[in-house]
């Protein structure tokens, strides 16, 4: 009866703490002598082990810790990674298209085009191995230049970046004219 109560206290403490707790500390909290507590916990350890439980108690240098059993790992991996369904959101697609066509390009330039911070999108694309660092721009701060990966090319079955569909040439002419005007303006300053 008394032992049952102590076991419950041990369980509650080890659960809440989540880390290794020294036997002395446990004993002090339960207000019982250390040796009895140690005996009771070792007994619990055996029982947790025998029973088909998902958690166990381990002893580390006179401290005790509650943790999951090793054969639960597969299940835990599944739960820990469920929310991470990899999808290319619109934001990612937009960012990817900018990088593909304007590479090598810095994050700042991407942000200028998109008009919003793009750290998250760029990081995700790097994580997905669609985009990678291709160099550094030699200006103060040495910003990273991003480009697409081989993996990206392979997935579209294209040999090189030149095979990317062109921005239609008429539009390109417009851009060029615009750019020239800008230059002209600059020289006029």
């Amino acid at each position, binding site marked *: 009866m008394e032992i049952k109560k102590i076991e419950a206290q041990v369980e509650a403490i080890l659960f809440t703490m989540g880390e290794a707790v020294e036997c002395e500390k446990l004993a002090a909290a339960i207000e019982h002598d250390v040796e009895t507590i140690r005996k009771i916990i070792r007994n619990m350890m055996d029982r947790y082990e025998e029973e088909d439980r998902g958690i166990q108690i381990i002893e580390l240098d006179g401290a005790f810790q509650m*943790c999951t059993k090793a054969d639960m790992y597969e299940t835990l991996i599944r739960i820990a990674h469920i929310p991470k369904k990899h999808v290319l959101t619109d934001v990612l697609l937009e960012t*990817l*298209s900018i990088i593909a066509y304007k590479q090598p390009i810095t994050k700042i330039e991407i942000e200028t085009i998109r008009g919003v911070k793009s750290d998250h999108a760029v990081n995700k694309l790097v994580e997905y191995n669609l985009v990678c660092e291709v160099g550094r721009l030699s200006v*103060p701060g040495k910003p990273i230049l991003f480009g697409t990966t081989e993996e990206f090319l392979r997935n579209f079955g294209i040999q090189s970046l030149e095979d990317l*569909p062109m921005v239609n040439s008429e*539009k390109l002419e417009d851009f060029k004219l615009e750019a020239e005007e800008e230059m002209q303006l*600059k020289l006029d300053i």
Partner: protein
Amino acid sequence: MSIKVKLEVFEGPLDLLLHLIDKNKVNIYDIPIITIAEQYMEYIQGMDSKDLDLMSEFLVMAATLLNIKSKMLLPKVQQDDTEEEEDPRKELVERLLEYKLYKYMSFELKDKQIDASRMLFKRATIPEEIKEFKEEVDTGALLSDLSLPKLHAIFRSVMKKQVDKIDPIRSKFGRIEKEEVNLNEKMEFIVNYAIQHKKFSFRKLLERQRGKIEVIVTFLGVLELIKMGTIWIMQEEIFDDITITYVDRSNEIGN
């Protein structure tokens, strides 16, 4: 009859009214409106009127009370039709009842919270092996819905959006990253200038620059050289000219 109301803080007019009803030991469904209204007025006269927002809410209720009071004082007109005359206090009683109900429920909740606070939770302790486990991202599956023409279309629409967004004035400012002025060259120029002049005016340095872009790049160069410790700057007063001094390191380093 007037009961001294201690200047307690009430959360609002309804709270105060409930307090007065309670204090007078009267029935909420049959409020002696004259007495309560008087006491209510007495209370709000003693209130700190600095908090106008709160004060105005108390005043609105005061007006309501006076309105009810006057209605109740008016002689009842005997109406012939079957329509029953409504007690002018009815709406107020309903509001008070509803408010009282939630006040009561809030005490119930408080008890629940005290009980619940005795249960402790645990932070997540995800084992390292699991945390570090990185699922291979299946790039193929990720790109399965994406075709090159689609990617191209997205890019075009992005660029179009950007063109639409261009500010007619700002867009003429030009962009620094396209500038022909090279920062390294400019820094070299500043260092040479500094070696020659040892101590010089920042304004003078800028006056030698042609155009906005050069000015900006020169400014960036100065910042970079300060960081490198090649020069240091001093400014007596805000908006004053800045004096730049060349830090001669040739002796210490001993070439």
